[in-house]
């Protein structure tokens, strides 16, 4: 058994999830592939969204994959960092907006 939870080499084995559940695995990869095709959003825009979400999900495989994907598309490091800030802003905003719930509770109990 590996001594670490994450191994970069595992990303290359992602496709193997179909080995133990072929139908569901194939449906997932078909869906995944379709999502990232050019559509109302460009593939470039989707790559930046994926990079931001990779960070908010804190998925090391996804961060590796979408950093490389961005470089392949000519996306600059400044664009990548800005995308991550969008993710970070939503994450922190989502935390802080719950502060209103705390304020409501304080006001009700101790107002």
């Amino acid at each position, binding site marked *: 058994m590996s001594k670490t939870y994450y191994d970069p080499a595992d990303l290359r084995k992602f496709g193997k999830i179909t080995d133990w559940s072929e139908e569901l695995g194939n449906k997932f990869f078909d869906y995944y592939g379709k999502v990232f095709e050019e559509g109302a959003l460009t*593939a470039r825009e989707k790559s930046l969204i994926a990079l931001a979400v990779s960070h908010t999900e804190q998925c090391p495989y996804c961060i590796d994959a979408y950093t490389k994907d961005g470089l392949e*598309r*000519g996306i600059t490091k400044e664009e990548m960092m800005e995308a991550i800030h969008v993710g970070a802003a939503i994450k922190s905003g989502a935390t802080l907006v719950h502060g209103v719930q705390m304020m409501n509770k304080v006001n009700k109990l101790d107002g």
Partner: protein
Amino acid sequence: MIKVKTQSLHKRESLLVQSKRQLEILSNGIFQNGELPKFKEKIAETNQFPLKAKKLEILQINVGYMCNQVCEHCHVDAGPDRKEIMTKETMLQCLEVIKNTGAHTLDLTGGAPEMNPHFRWFVEEASKAGIKDFIVRSNLTIIRANKKYYDLPEFFKKHNVHVVSSMPHWTRGKTDKQRGDGVFDKSIKALQELNAIGYGMPNSSLRLDLVYNPSGAFLPGNQASMEKDFKKALLEDFGIQFHNLFAITNLPISRFLDYLIASENYEDYMYQLVDAYNPDAVTNVMCTNTLSISWDGYLYDCDFNQMLELPVNSKVKHISQYNEELLEGRNIVISQHCYGCTAGAGSSCQGTVA
């Protein structure tokens, strides 16, 4: 002024100067222990081994390894210190071939081909042969490097030369990182000068194409999308226009191999190339319709094999013995670097192939 950031492997006296050493690296390790299939095994899976030369379409001549730039990933290991330059005598032998070849494209490369002292004479003579597409691979900065080169755009125009130039990104940072400080600004100026005399303009017969190759250990993205992004950025920021963008994969040889090893990216990069292997690209890979001639007149299946000192597998070895019929049908000499030309949409000196 261009500030050279790196030195050629020759100047550094690197072990990789020996092509034998490069070929050992490409055949050992992950390719020896069976982790990854050798290129020969891979193409055999689709009955494409041996790879055979078809009818010659492109004659590529490397007129010397001297260059005013020392780009990080140069597969030629070109630089100001390289003294290998094609002589007039070898050029005369090339001209004989150019007059009689069935190839539709003549492609001059280097180094900076313009630094060969006989370059202009050679272009004047070669252009008389009436080959359909006459390419000069110009690094752009040479046009601004010295007063004696300032008139190159007019010279190219006079001889209806098709200019193909490297441009790794539309931003200064990424371009200068790969090609040296100051390269971006000089390249922009040179492109504007080429545009000013008609090169690269819509509907102009003066062809100006750009070559994109990645600035690091990753593969090029979709050629058409990259072309769109390049065109938009260069037009908006600098008013520059060009015809096509060729997306080229960096092959794991010479300075790029050195970079991959030093940055501990070699194995991952080879995995990327093998994972992206596309048998359709093998069908049109450039070595099957191209012949590469070195500065000293020897014949190779491609510029990469030239740098690895892997000569053509034919009785005809040198331009002085040239025989197009004998060369047709020869077995192409391959090694694991060939995965670079078969990844994704494929890669060649004229861009994608699949």
